[in-house]
Every structure is written in structure tokens, then in C-alpha cells.
């Protein structure tokens, strides 16, 4: 393969990985937009989503699409539950208390999962015959990658529709812009916050199931690194911005693929965090972020 086709091939790999980051980053950015919390437990929610998908496929013998939907629904409910139990009582507490609680929830989910499903990695059943790959010219796209593109695309369009056009979506934007005034409109801010956690967690669950399908292996600590990477993606895109989360996720995925493809995969993670440092130094509001002016 010549250099250019290698570039295109890495681009395909990068967009696959980046799509997963985007799905997780959307939840990060939505929750941040609405209660200004960096939900460090979000990566672990994604892990739980992967496990629910795994059990649905491996134990209940379901197909990938029913498994995906079941995982999204149950993980969405888990997200609402976490918010209700851990974050809601701290609504008027200083933000640092929320952040520390999020780290606590993260550990809780990780070690509770080890207790219930054992720390041993599980092998995700093969959904696609991995020898089947599609050749587009000289480039190779496999079934898993096509599934990732398609699901991410559909979910992003669906989310955009919900946020822009539906009543709950408008309420989410209003609460995110000015919670108190939203309440004066008759919006129940607690319900909107709960819905935001639910939707964000469901998207992370989709990412978890797709990663299981893509990499075949899941374990209780699998959420830590992608959780941090998705955080980088959300900051890169501009935290609080939905298009920012998707674009940030894709850019991060592509950069990681290029670094592993052309330099060495050992530098992959370093590249992601170097991006975080650079963004924070030179453009803290990210690509799509509004300038971070404090409201008076």
C-alpha cells in the first residue's frame, strides 16, 4: 500500500474509534451544559452499557439491534438513578462536592461491577464474520466499522432532532441556558436534568455495545480510558456544545489512528492528552465553544 492509501485506511479506522468517543462525549457535554458537572462516572456508565449488551447477546441470545436498544434503555435508567441518588441531593452544594461525588460514583460502579460480573474480561460474541470485509477500491471497511458509522449517524441525527424540535429538547436548552428562568416558564428543572442524564447515559451505552462488537473484549475497568478520552473530545469540541462533542470525538479518533499508524501505538494515549493540554492552553472554549465569559 502506498502512503496515500495508508492515510485513507487510518482515516477509516480513526472515524470508527472517533464515533465511539463522540457517543460518550455527547453525554459528557449534555450533563455539563445543564448542571455544570464533569461527570467522571460517565465512562463507567458506558462500561455498564457494554455489559448489558454483552449479556443480552451472549446469555439471552438476542441480535445486535435488540441488545443495543435494551442496553440503551436500562443504562439510561441507571443514569437517571445515579443522578437521583448521588447528584440531586447536592443541587445547591458547591461544584467541587459534585465533582468528588462523581469520582465516588465512578469507583462504585467499577468495583460493584467487579463484584457482580467478576474482574475477568469477557469475550463479546462475534456478531459479524470478521473475515468479511468490504473493499472500496483498495480500502477495507469491515462490518463492525459500518455498524459503528451507521449507529452513530442515526443516534446523532435523532439527538439533534430531540434537542432542536421536541418540547423536552427545548426545555433542556432553556434549563441549560438559565435554569431559574426556565422554572418561571413552568419547566420542572429536576425532570429535565433527569432526562438529560437518561439520554446521555443511553448514548454512552450504545458506545459501550459498539466497542464490545468492535474490540470483542470488555471488562469492568474498560470505561476509564475512553471516559477520559471522551472528556478530551468534549473539551476539544467546546464543552456544552453538541456538534462540538461529535466533531471533537471524530478528530480525536483520527489523530489517535494516525499516531498509532504512523508513529507507534504507544504514543496514542499521550497524543490524546497532549491535545487536552494544548486546547486548555490556547483555546479553552474549544472549537465550537462560546467564549467563556462569566455571566453577571
Amino acid at each position: 500500500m502506498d502512503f496515500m492509501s495508508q492515510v485513507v485506511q487510518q482515516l477509516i479506522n480513526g472515524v470508527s474509534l472517533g464515533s465511539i468517543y463522540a457517543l460518550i462525549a455527547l453525554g459528557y457535554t449534555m450533563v455539563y451544559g445543564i448542571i455544570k458537572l464533569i461527570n467522571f462516572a460517565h465512562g463507567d456508565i458506558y462500561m455498564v452499557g457494554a455489559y448489558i449488551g454483552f449479556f443480552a447477546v451472549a446469555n439471552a441470545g438476542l441480535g445486535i439491534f435488540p441488545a443495543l436498544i435494551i442496553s440503551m434503555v436500562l443504562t439510561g435508567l441507571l443514569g437517571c438513578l445515579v443522578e437521583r441518588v448521588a447528584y440531586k441531593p447536592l443541587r445547591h452544594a458547591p461544584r467541587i462536592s459534585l465533582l468528588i461525588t462523581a469520582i465516588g460514583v465512578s469507583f462504585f460502579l467499577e468495583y460493584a461491577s467487579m463484584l457482580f460480573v467478576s474482574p475477568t474480561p469477557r469475550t463479546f460474541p462475534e456478531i459479524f464474520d470478521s473475515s468479511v470485509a468490504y473493499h472500496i477500491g483498495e480500502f477495507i471497511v469491515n462490518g463492525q466499522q459500518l455498524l459503528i458509522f451507521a449507529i452513530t449517524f442515526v443516534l446523532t441525527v435523532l439527538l439533534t432532532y430531540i434537542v432542536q424540535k421536541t418540547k423536552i429538547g427545548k426545555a433542556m436548552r432553556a434549563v441549560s441556558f438559565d435554569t431559574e428562568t426556565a422554572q418561571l416558564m413552568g419547566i420542572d428543572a429536576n425532570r429535565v436534568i433527569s432526562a438529560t442524564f437518561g439520554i446521555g447515559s443511553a448514548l454512552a451505552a450504545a458506545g459501550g455495545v459498539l466497542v464490545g462488537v468492535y474490540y470483542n473484549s470488555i471488562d469492568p475497568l474498560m470505561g476509564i480510558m475512553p471516559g477520559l478520552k471522551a472528556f478530551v473530545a468534549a473539551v476539544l469540541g467546546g464543552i456544552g456544545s453538541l456538534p462540538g462533542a461529535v466533531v471533537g470525538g471524530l478528530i480525536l479518533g483520527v489523530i489517535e489512528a494516525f499516531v498509532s499508524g504512523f508513529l507507534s501505538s504507544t504514543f496514542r494515549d499521550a497524543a490524546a492528552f497532549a491535545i487536552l493540554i494544548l486546547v486548555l492552553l490556547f483555546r479553552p472554549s474549544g472549537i465550537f465553544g462560546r467564549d467563556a465569559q462569566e455571566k453577571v
Partner: protein
Amino acid sequence: MADMLEIKDIHVYYGAIHAIKGVSLSVRQGEIVTLIGSNGAGKSTTLRTISGLLKPKEGDILFEGESIAGRPAQDIVKAGISQVPEGRRIFANMTVMENLELGAFSRSDADGIEADMHMVFKRFPRLLERKEQAAGTLSGGEQQMLAMGRALMSHPRLLLLDEPSMGLAPLLIREIFSIIEDINRAGTTVLLVEQNANMALSIAHRAYVLETGRIALSGDAKELAASEEVRKAYLGG
């Protein structure tokens, strides 16, 4: 006539600060009542407590005979009270249309919402011209109109207005106040908080003067406007 809104000796705190120290007031159906007083007297705090954003520690608030004190904000809107907050607080990143739709959030009667949307556009024709525009691009006066239109979209029986004259040119203030009178004539009861006591007393039926968390004076708006005490303290001599 029976009191539509009755506030009975409420005490409100911001943390340790005792902001409202036993305020009682009433608004009768069909009236414009104004609450005047200097900065920090507790005017906005009183409105925020009525709207359910703050809970009174003591005392009670009755709306049409029913206690609403301490109920969540969304219930208060459903009960028939809406507020135009201080500083307008429009949703700047959303369109004029979306702002109005949010005003009708608590309703599900599509026909009624449609009718009120027409009413708002009739009252504020400039909003119709700008309905697809981001609300943040409107001028100060237009934003005040949007905030009022948005509050009317919940079809309130009692409208709370917090400093509608703030930051507006005198001509615009006059326009806004004449619209408030129109809204009142069309059947909506109004509780108006103002620092611009002159304007407020000129359109109100009755008035209360708030001083550091307590009602200092109350009575007929015309009489208060004429009284020596009020003239000295609030009307600039």
C-alpha cells in the same frame, strides 16, 4: 372584591440574611398593584417568593384562596401566575418563536396556545417581524416585549412584572407602561415591582412601599403619589 393574592406575614432568608421581615400585602382581581422601594428593599425577593423560586420560612401565600407558599415554581405557573423577571432574562440563544413557545410550556391546549400567540403578536407586532431571529439580537425594548409576551403565553390570571423599565429610554418606558395598562384592561391582574416610582404610581390602583424587608406605607396610588413622605423618599422631592 375578594383578594386574588394574599401574602400573610412572610419571612424569607438568603442563607443567614433575613431579607423579608414579615411582609403582608394583597392584590384584588382586576387591579394593578405596585410595590415600590429602593434598591435592596426586598421587592424582587418578594416576587421570587411568590413564583416559588424561594421558600418563605414563615408566613403564607394564598392565591385564589389556596396556599401556594413553598410549592415548586412549575406548580405556581400552572396555578395561573407568571413572572417577567428582572433584567428580562430571555433565552438569548433561541429564536423569538422558541421563547414564546417556552412561555406556553405548562399548557397542552394547542388551540388556546395558538390564540394567545396571535394575541401576543397583535400586541407586539415587532416580535412577529422578528420571530425567526435569535432573541439575543433584539434591542432592549424588544427584549422587554419578548419577556412580557413570553409571560403572557402561559395565559396567567396574575402577571408579576419585575422592573420592566430597567435600562430603557423614557419613550420606550412610556410605551411599555401603556401596554401594561392594556394587558390589565384585557383582564389580567398585575403586580408591578418598580424603582421608577413615578411611572408605577401613575398606572397603579394601589401601592405598597417596601423598606429593608418591611412594608413602610401602603394605600391608594394617587394618594401615595401626593404624599409628602413618598415624594421626598422616592420621587425626588
